[in-house]
């Protein structure tokens, strides 16, 4: 599936992805998702389309452990978050809820570029710039969790928490 790139700067915090002032909406995820990333790019939640990509610089998702941050990004229809690096907790949360978080060189991607993800091949294709960006495989445990669609499904399949 092809989607557009939404570019973000370095160090986007979870407070910008899903601000604490909307804490009261956390049990109403569709409403919470209407504010996704609005403090970083106001037009994002109203204009993002199914299949689009969040494309960031370094240290995306720094700060809080709120799993609502990757959840609302996924609910917006985002295929994957691409970044030069991720904050640790956001990365783990994204995989746990089945949102691909991919470390690659995002500097070559421009705003609104058409992107296509080939997850199992380790390639993001930028159809606009006509380039292929490769990324290293995830750790085997994280790959297995993501393949199952998230940690709950992974644990249910194995009947326990095991390492792959």
């Amino acid at each position, binding site marked *: 599936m092809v989607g557009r790139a939404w570019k973000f700067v370095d160090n986007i915090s979870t407070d910008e992805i899903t601000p604490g002032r909307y*804490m009261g909406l956390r049990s109403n995820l569709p409403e919470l998702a209407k504010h996704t990333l609005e403090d970083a790019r106001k037009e994002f939640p109203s204009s993002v389309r199914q299949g689009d990509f969040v494309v960031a610089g*370094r240290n995306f998702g*720094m700060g*809080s452990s709120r799993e*609502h941050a990757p959840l609302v990004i996924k609910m917006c229809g985002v295929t994957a978050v691409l970044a030069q690096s991720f904050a640790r*907790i956001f990365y*783990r*949360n994204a995989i746990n809820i089945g949102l691909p978080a991919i470390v690659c060189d995002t500097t070559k991607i421009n705003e609104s570029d058409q992107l296509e993800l080939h997850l199992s091949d380790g390639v993001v294709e930028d159809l606009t710039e006509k380039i292929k960006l490769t990324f290293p495989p995830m750790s085997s445990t994280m790959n297995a969790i993501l393949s199952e669609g998230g940690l709950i499904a992974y644990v249910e399949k194995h009947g326990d*928490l095991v390492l792959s």
Partner: protein
Amino acid sequence: MTGKTLAEKLIGSHTAKGSASAGDVVIVTVDYTFSHDAAGPLLIQQLNQLNKIPSGVDKNRTVFFIDHAVPSPTKELSNDQAIVRNYALDNDLILSDAGNGICHQILAEDYLSPGDLMVGTDSHSCTAGGLCAFGTGMGATDIAIATKLRKTWLRVPESLRMNVLGRLPRGVFAKDLILKTLSILGTDGATYKSLEFDGAAINELEVYGRLTLTNMAVEAGAKTGLVKSDARTKQYLKEVGREQNWKEIQADEDASYESTIDLNASDVQPQVAFPGSPANVKPVSEAKDVRVNEVFIGTCTNTRIEDMRIVAQILKGKQKARGLKLVVTPSSKKVYMKCMEEGILETLLQAGAMITPPGCGVCYGAVGGIPADNEVIFSTSNRNFPGRTGNPKAQTYLGSPATATATAVTGYITDPREFM
């Protein structure tokens, strides 16, 4: 064979094999799991999804806190808190209800001991490292699994050693030391790593200051922050009535660190984080013309009783600046009661402070003194990301309780040494 870092020791002792080295991916048993009103409803939803998995929930080691927005300002937050409260009551789990205090402070006061491994739905779980317990924050799904199965998976982190030499000068505190550290590391300089503090200045630091250091390890991206367990740790446990839980733990002398950074505490000035990032740090002298509309003294970073004594010492007999809002939120009920016994509440009230119930206060931006548009708030908390204190049009500066108090008196960011 090389020796072990603190992270390797604390994680290793929770594996089936009994030891672990940096880079290993391991399953560990957990001593405590916790959640709170900000993440608890999602965690409970995930727990309920796991109904096919046999439950290993330990009623004495699963803690639910209501601390992030207390007392609740809206019906939506009240409903979320009711979900958490009722779940804890119905399942006979530990409940630290609204008014008891902030999760990280209560865990230190009442539960954690050196050597423990704890995971919780809060990024500041790394605060536990001030007691030489391994704590790390995770999301609701991970903690649901850890709560139900009493185990989690971890990659054993490489360790970055902060070797803090010298001693902290008068008017300079652990908060200044960690802000200085963040100015060196940036917000991702310790990503995935264990940030381990050692050296002469750390040996001299009481546990309340060590908790401030480890609390902010996550602001450099670290998985956890750790300090050894020594005689000062024993003294802290004695003060909270759990001396029998003390044991000595230190890194081996030949432990292998990814890197070591030397920092001389004697050279550190009071530090201030400018708006936008806790690593956007400069000495207080470069912030002295900044006019402040609100001072917030609170959070899991500061406002232990030792912090409150420093606040009272500076504020005694003085008034807050005219037109400035001074909000003080003790970190726990015990700290609040000690403030009462020691006359600190009287000093605060006479100076014109508002004292709010123990909890996270305005740090989280949901309750307790949200600033107006274009206002400047000076906070003793750990984060000043855009919008953090509830209003994206306000600006947040961070500093020590002493700097915050001096600032409350003058109305401008002020070097606390002028008052000490």
